[in-house]
């Protein structure tokens, strides 16, 4: 019914759009306003990472519907030089741009899943997901 939403990230204005799209997908999947804000905050950090370090990339917001849960999967991709030290990038206070080094560790803390694929000159892909458990009642209602 609803599929991926792709936002091309080239500047800071695109980040505003990416946040709004992520929030809209979360809302359609029944996430609370609170969770929508958490997801939008993570999207903002992932998008800014692209703008600041690479200059261009894309963010895909993918709705996931499973029987007992649904989720928002955020995929941030760029074809830049990659993150030299992934473990360090996930540590608080490791800053390479003009940031405080809180972006990626913060985003990881607010999402349920978070993985970084980077290196070998093939760019960086960060995949993060937030899940919501669907209870019996919700599933029953849907079957009717």
């Amino acid at each position, binding site marked *: 019914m609803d599929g991926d939403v792709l936002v091309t990230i080239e500047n800071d204005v695109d980040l505003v759009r990416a*946040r709004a799209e992520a929030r809209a997908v979360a809302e359609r999947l029944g996430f609370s306003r609170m969770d929508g804000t958490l997801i939008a905050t993570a999207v*903002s*950090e992932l998008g*800014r990472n692209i703008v600041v370090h690479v200059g261009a990339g894309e963010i895909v917001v993918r709705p996931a519907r499973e029987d007992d849960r649904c989720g928002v999967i955020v995929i941030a991709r760029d074809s830049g030089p990659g993150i030299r030290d992934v473990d360090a990038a996930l540590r608080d206070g490791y800053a390479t741009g003009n940031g*405080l080094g*809180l*972006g990626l560790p913060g985003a990881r803390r607010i999402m349920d899943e978070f993985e970084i694929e980077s290196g070998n000159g093939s760019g960086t892909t960060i995949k993060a997901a937030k899940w919501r458990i669907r209870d019996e009642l919700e599933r029953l209602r849907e079957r009717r």
Partner: protein
Amino acid sequence: MAIPILKQGPWLIASIQSALSDSEILELRDDLADMVGRRRARGIVLDVAGIDVIDSFVARSLRTIAMTTRLRGAETVIVGIQPEVAVAMVQFQLDLEPLHTALDLEEGLEVLKSRVTNGARADGR
């Protein structure tokens, strides 16, 4: 889209009504630093009720605004942080230290009044 900055007595009031891009928030920082001097303001209330997220960049920018304007002689109070934005900031482990915050515009003005008039300033102005 520039954020309007209103003057009320010795205070400046800037109210962010919608989601902001990074460059808009930097523009606001520069406008406030400039206005503090031109309008001889002693304090600023920055209402962020319309802001959609406070991520690490926005948090840093708000701190920069407060520190920049303090160097120009004015205190800043941030008001209007929405409940869900506050929760996200806590989970993110972002804080706004050493910023002053208050619930809304009215409270923000009260904070400014007590800080600026009760000897929070060392120069006795």
